[in-house]
């Protein structure tokens, strides 16, 4: 039956992972090809097996096999089928299995590729990835097993979960399940965790290659080149996951914002920060052979932060709105982190000297220096965020006093650093490699700078008076203009060859995907920055209790409370829905909104869904806070006006498109790359 199939497949996958690790580690130093191939096959086998396991859980969820504890925990009869499928990652046990499934997908894909160029590294890549996969599978098998069933003790009548039938008990099948957490039933929830997990999980590939490079003592750029696309893809998914998380929080959590600096949010942001630093500094290593040690440090940190973040989220060590229920995986996870960090750091220190390059810097005004400054700033933000997230733990340990480090801290500390990063983002592309002259830099910057001055005057006239907001707008405008000027320069150069502007731009981007994809990402960041500045500095909010027919005004909009009704729905919810009409400053009606409060009967949890009217200029965002239950004559509303907030999502789309462009496989690049190693192969042929 399904359960047996799923459980066995999971166990077999675990055995494959162990076998692959052992075989790879024994055969690696000896370069015993047959054993390594066998290990590789075992590694590739993990994915189909875990897929079987995941499918069996989905089948049990959809069919409603409530004797399985996990199904009872996250599913219910009233839920629609697509939510039952997504319930796979709705609880701790299922989401761990989902994590393992994604990880095995990536590791198997990595095994699939041609290995001629890096044969010596393969055993260690297999070992690193399979040890990690094995760890997560062991969590799924021995601690948080989704295949546990409910048994009722015949003597005491107590009902408890177990994998195999305990003595004196019979299988217990509840009538119905608790259902998915209401907050997780939103479309955003369907896609946000998979994206985030994809981002986290795919960082293991560059990490495994880095570790393999350290173990084999290879100090060239092989590992970076090989994993460059992987890293970009990992970063793409992580960025997408973060943006979607923000959007979901805005749509469904009902507090008018999209980023709360909650510990779990920070845990996802930290690897993104070091990952971005890494993406930039590998370019330096590729172009100039510099920073080999530093890049190792960055990828090890990124991956360690992924694991650390996952641990902090799932172990209950931090207090957060996102946290899973406490479970026994904490100590095991902690052990794994300890081993990972100690091994990685040990290997790094052992190879430190070999990694030191013969680098030299020609000028402090150079792109190399700019990238290094970029790294300093990103790591500054990362440290501040990590410190703020961990400080409550330190405080509790040292003084016994629990404290909360909230948004004010992060805004004050990270704000200036992020502004500096955005500013650098605009200047660095104009700075040449090796040595730039201040004059040429000035030549490139003066038009954008002048236009920024004009833009600032415009912003001031439009109503932005706060100096901080103006400075922020100025930086964003300047960076947007310099980035566009880069596009303009390149397009103009191609136009001289006779192409029309559109073709020139298209070909320019197609021929230099990494560069112009990167610039597109920068443009996306600029658009997002405008959105963030607008919604942060100029957000308006108010709250009031209105009688039917009364109005409330905020930010040029007027809303009128028309009615509020209460009704049950098919999927076991009690919905209280208000109808309000929105008018603009001229009195014209611009929308009818329905903010509501859903009360989920099975779990007793409420959910507040805002009514939102969105335009590019701002969002008019209304929450139903309270209402008179019997007479329905008055209700309390909280309204926000969030200026420019939709630029955050628009910028996010541009950002993702840019990343896709940068990551797209480049046929020309491949040809150029293959040419070089041909000569390498002749030198090292003897080693094989």
């Amino acid at each position, binding site marked *: 039956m399904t359960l047996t199939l799923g459980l066995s497949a999971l166990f077999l996958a675990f055995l494959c992972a162990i076998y692959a690790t052992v075989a790879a580690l024994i055969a690696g130093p000896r370069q015993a090809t047959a054993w390594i191939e066998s290990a590789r096959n075992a590694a590739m086998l993990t994915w189909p097996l875990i897929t079987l396991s995941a499918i069996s859980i989905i089948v049990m969820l959809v069919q409603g096999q409530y004797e399985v504890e996990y199904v009872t925990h996250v599913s219910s009869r009233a839920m629609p089928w697509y939510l039952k499928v997504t319930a796979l990652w709705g609880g701790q046990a299922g989401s761990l299995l989902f994590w393992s499934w994604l990880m095995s997908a990536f590791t198997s894909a990595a095994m699939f590729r041609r290995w001629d160029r890096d044969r010596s590294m393969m055993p260690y890549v297999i070992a690193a990835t399979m040890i990690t996969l094995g760890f997560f599978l062991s969590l799924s098998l021995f601690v948080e097993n989704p295949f546990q069933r409910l048994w009722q003790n015949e003597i005491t009548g107590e009902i408890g979960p177990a994998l195999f039938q305990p003595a004196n008990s019979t299988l217990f099948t509840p009538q119905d399940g608790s259902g998915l957490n209401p907050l997780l039933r939103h479309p955003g929830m369907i896609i946000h965790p998979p994206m985030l997990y994809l981002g986290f999980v795919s960082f293991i590939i560059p990490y495994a290659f880095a570790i393999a490079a350290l173990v084999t003592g290879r100090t060239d750029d092989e590992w970076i080149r090989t994993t460059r696309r992987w890293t970009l893809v990992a970063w793409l998914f992580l960025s997408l996951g973060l943006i979607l998380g923000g959007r979901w929080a805005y749509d469904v959590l009902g507090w008018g914002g999209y980023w709360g600096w909650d510990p779990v949010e920070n845990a996802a942001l930290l690897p993104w920060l070091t990952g971005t630093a890494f993406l930039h500094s590998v370019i330096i290593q590729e172009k100039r052979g510099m920073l080999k040690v530093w890049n190792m440090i960055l990828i090890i940190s990124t991956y360690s932060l992924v694991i650390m973040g996952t641990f902090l989220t799932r*172990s209950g060590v931090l207090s957060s709105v996102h946290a899973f229920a406490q479970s026994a995986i904490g*100590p095991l996870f902690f052990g794994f982190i300890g081993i990972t960090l100690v091994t990685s750091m040990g290997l790094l220190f052992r190879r430190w000297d070999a990694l030191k390059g013969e680098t030299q810097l020609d000028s402090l005004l150079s792109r190399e220096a700019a990238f290094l400054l970029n790294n300093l700033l990103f790591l500054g933000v990362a440290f501040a965020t990590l410190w703020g997230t961990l400080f409550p733990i330190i405080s509790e340990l040292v003084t016994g006093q629990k404290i909360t480090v909230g948004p004010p801290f992060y805004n004050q500390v990270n704000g200036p650093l992020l502004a500096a990063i955005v500013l650098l983002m605009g200047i660095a592309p104009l700075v040449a490699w090796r040595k730039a002259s201040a004059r040429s830099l000035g030549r490139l910057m003066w038009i954008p700078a002048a236009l920024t001055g004009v833009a600032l005057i415009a912003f001031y006239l439009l109503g932005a008076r706060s100096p901080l907001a103006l400075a922020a707008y100025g930086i964003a405008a300047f960076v947007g203009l310099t980035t566009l000027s880069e596009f303009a320069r390149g397009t103009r150069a191609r136009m001289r060859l006779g192409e029309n502007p559109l073709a020139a731009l298209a070909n320019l981007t197609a021929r230099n995907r990494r560069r112009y994809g990167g610039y597109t990402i920068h443009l996306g960041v600029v658009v997002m920055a405008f959105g963030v500045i607008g919604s942060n500095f100029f957000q308006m909010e108010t709250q009031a209790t209105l009688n039917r027919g009364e109005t409330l005004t905020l930010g040029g909009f007027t809303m009128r409370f028309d009615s509020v009704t209460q009704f049950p729905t098919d999927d076991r919810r009690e919905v209280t829905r208000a109808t309000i009409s929105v008018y603009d400053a001229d009195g014209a009606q611009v929308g009818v909104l329905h903010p509501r409060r859903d009360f989920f009967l099975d779990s007793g949890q409420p959910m507040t869904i805002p009514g939102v009217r969105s335009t590019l200029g701002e969002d008019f965002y209304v929450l139903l806070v309270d209402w008179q239950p019997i007479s329905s004559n008055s209700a309390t509303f909280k309204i926000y006006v969030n200026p420019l907030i939709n630029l955050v999502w628009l910028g996010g789309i541009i950002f993702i498109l840019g990343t896709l462009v940068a990551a797209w496989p480049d046929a020309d690049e491949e040809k150029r790359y293959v040419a070089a190693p041909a000569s390498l192969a002749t030198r090292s042929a003897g080693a094989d």
Partner: protein
Amino acid sequence: MTNETLPSPQAAVPEPTVSLQRRLGQIAAWAILFALLVMIAVQLYRRTLGQVSSGSAPGFTLTTFDGQEISLESLRGQVVVVNFWASWCKPCEKEAPELEAFYRAYKDRGVVVLGVDYVDTETEARAYLKKFGITYPNGPDLGTRISQSFRIKGVPETFVIDRNGQLVKTIIGETTQDKLAVIVEPLLK
């Protein structure tokens, strides 16, 4: 061991001994890592600790809503039942009449019931006490110090302390008069 690094100019020169600076840097890095791991380990351990369930009960001083100060030490010689509750807690309302009935039955036999109001507002707390006609002393847990020392994970939770100040029983969730009687009777001998 196969080594695929390309020969670099430094290969001919024997590796110099690790400089003091490098060594200090490495030691610092290991120290920070160690500190981080220890910190997380301790926090993890404390999270897995359940409520206090044995040994000497944590001492505390409760200032009741009427302004009276009662310290646990001063109640030595009596059996003390410490109950954590809150006005916003539904299960607490179920056990409130049970606790009051228990108190009335046993207060002349050397049993004291103390109600510790966890994270609540005074107005609501007083309303709650009035609603259930509660006569035993109740006070707010200022700064959540008392609940932290008992390591409660939620409300309601009840702790039974014997005449010598030793914690005898930890009840998680609501309780009844009969259950309390069963626990307290042996302690009165």
